[in-house]
């Protein structure tokens, strides 16, 4: 009975956390973009435009759902849902605090990667199901991008698993306790390339979440709006929300693997506040990057992954194995 209440309350809290994030990250992005671009961003709906997400949501929900004539109806309809589900599901495994984990899995990390790949698939389904050439190109691009960037991401994650000897996300965080130099990103005693592999992981999560400069799936200058060109109303809304959910997941995972999760950098008061602080800092840097850099080309993107990131992460993997073996 106790367990049931625990799970129920976690479910409600997670839904609230998720809803708040999905709505207000959009606001943060628009406000941030505004300030980066010498303008104010949303300001009319509510104080500081704080009610803007609600207004947007209302607008999207009240729109008619139009299915294009040559769309593949079942695929077209299920793609937005299919992007949303894995993104939401993954919140179950994230350790917000030492005892604040909805469900502790001993294979949390594996689960993360497994479901993250489903998100990539759903973009292809959306692109294919739309029956639009732009969407199709975008879908194909998004999948080859996801495949290319999952490999260095996985290899880097394996490095972490080798160091910590666990796939349990909470256990990985526990091992980074103490001070800031115990975080995996600064664990030079395990591998001297650790800060760089943090960078690799960060770049990969940028690419995995389809954000500028790697937003090949959207690419509005070339492909109109990419895979969601034909989606209106809440179909589009779900894609947008899934993007933000993936953003939160990606940043949480980076925080957990490299930045010590809920551990405090100064050794006192560990707790969820540190986790949130680090995560939102990463999210903000994503926003910052998006409004600063132009987009790479599709070819440049794949080259970066296959020619630099993958060889590098492999070298890092070998080096870490060597370090662990020798010391």
């Amino acid at each position: 009975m106790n367990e049931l209440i625990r799970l129920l309350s976690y479910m409600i809290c997670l839904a609230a956390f998720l809803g708040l994030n999905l709505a207000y990250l959009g606001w943060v992005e628009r406000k941030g973009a505004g300030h980066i671009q010498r303008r104010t961003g949303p300001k009319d709906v509510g104080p500081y435009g704080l009610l803007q997400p609600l207004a947007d949501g209302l607008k999207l929900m009240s729109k008619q759902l139009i299915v294009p004539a040559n769309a593949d109806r079942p695929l077209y309809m299920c793609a937005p849902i299919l992007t949303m589900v894995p993104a939401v599901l993954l919140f179950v495994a994230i350790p917000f605090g030492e005892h604040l984990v909805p469900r502790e899995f001993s294979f949390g990390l594996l689960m993360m990667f497994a479901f993250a790949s489903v998100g990539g698939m759903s973009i292809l389904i959306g692109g294919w199901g739309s029956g639009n050439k732009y969407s199709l190109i975008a879908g194909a691009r998004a999948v080859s991008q996801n495949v290319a960037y999952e490999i260095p991401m996985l290899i880097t994650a394996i490095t972490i698993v080798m160091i910590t000897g666990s796939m349990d996300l909470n256990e990985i965080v526990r091992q980074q306790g103490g001070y800031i130099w115990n975080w995996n990103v600064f664990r030079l005693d395990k591998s001297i390339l650790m800060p760089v592999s943090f960078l690799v992981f960060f770049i990969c999560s940028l690419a995995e979440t389809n954000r500028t400069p790697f937003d090949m799936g959207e690419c509005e200058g070339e492909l109109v709006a990419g895979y969601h060109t034909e989606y209106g109303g809440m179909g589009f809304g779900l894609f947008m929300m899934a993007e933000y959910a993936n953003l939160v997941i990606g940043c949480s995972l980076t925080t957990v693997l490299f930045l010590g999760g809920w551990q405090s950098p100064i050794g006192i008061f560990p707790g969820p506040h540190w986790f949130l602080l680090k995560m939102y800092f990463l999210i903000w840097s994503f926003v910052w990057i998006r409004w600063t850099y132009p987009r790479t080309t599709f070819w440049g993107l794949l080259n970066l992954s296959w020619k630099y990131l993958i060889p590098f992460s492999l070298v890092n993997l070998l080096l870490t194995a060597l370090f662990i073996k020798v010391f």
Partner: protein
Amino acid sequence: MSSLAQSQLRETFELNIGPQHPATHGVLRIKVVMDGEYIDRAEPILGYIHRMHEKMGENRTWNQFWPNMGRLDYLSAMAYNHCYAGLMERAAGIEVPERAEYIRVITAELNRIQSHLLGFGAYIMDLGGFTPLMYAMDEREQILDLLESVTGSRLTYCYFRFGGVYNDIDDDFITGTRAFLKRFRPQIPMYHKLVTGNAILMDRLIGVGPISADMCRKYGATGPVLRGSGVNYDIRRNEPYSVYPELDFDIPVYKECDSMARYMVRMDEMVQSCRIIENALNKLPEGPVMAEKVPKALKPPKGDYHYAVEAARGTFSMRTVSDGTNTSYRMRLRSPTYSNVSLFEEASRGMLLSDALAFLGSLDPVIPEMDR
């Protein structure tokens, strides 16, 4: 051409870019035959915003044709005003007061900076960087405010008249322009630092969309496109008009022939335009801004007249045949974008889609001017 495109077993599909597409800056349609991500053949299809400006010129009086000049290239309308004014003054033999010519040059150059600023911002936006557009728009607003104060309009100017300009500039405009120059000058190095030096941008522009000088000559490309291919050709120098010979400025020329060269020509031209404006403000003479005794109903003598100016996108020239009445017998407009875009078909063969659109942006097309 890619090895992919050359292979025997190929499957192509057609992609319509436009007439409504974010990369085409208007109603340009490009019919592309794609081979995967490579372009097999790209054919620009024009005419979606054709308004028969040339025919309009033939059934309106000379004066009634003025408003059309603001509606060709809506980004650098002042140069088009200048061309029409110059053409008719040449035809009717009207002497323009020197002050009017200086004012024309100042406003036309301000307009050129404004046009290049928007071209710069919109181009980077094509490449996925949204922020520079907002910075460019901020600067552009200052120019629009200045020009609005003397011309009364913000975009489709109809400021010049046969024999001068409609309105004299006042001290507010002069001090405002000087203040703008002072504010704007340090911005360009900042743009170079923030945007031009960006590794991703350099990767996307350098070596992309090479156009040789021969190809430019073949299609009649002018303006930054031609000067980015290493040809030093600018009407302001090669066929001087107005008071340009008395002002000192350089013509930026880049020999790289790629998109980066065209981009750099535009950026450098903004600096040169600042120089021209400052120079002209310093030399601005006193006097009237309209020639005396310009007839209300102009009737230029019979003949065939031609006048060319350097607009922001290249050479704009007008040719008219007058039969001695108050309307034109034949009117012909030569607009730069039309020639610049016509080389797209040949130059884009075998390019990647994303490169081709980066290349199209570097031509800086303005569609209403192309379709006329």
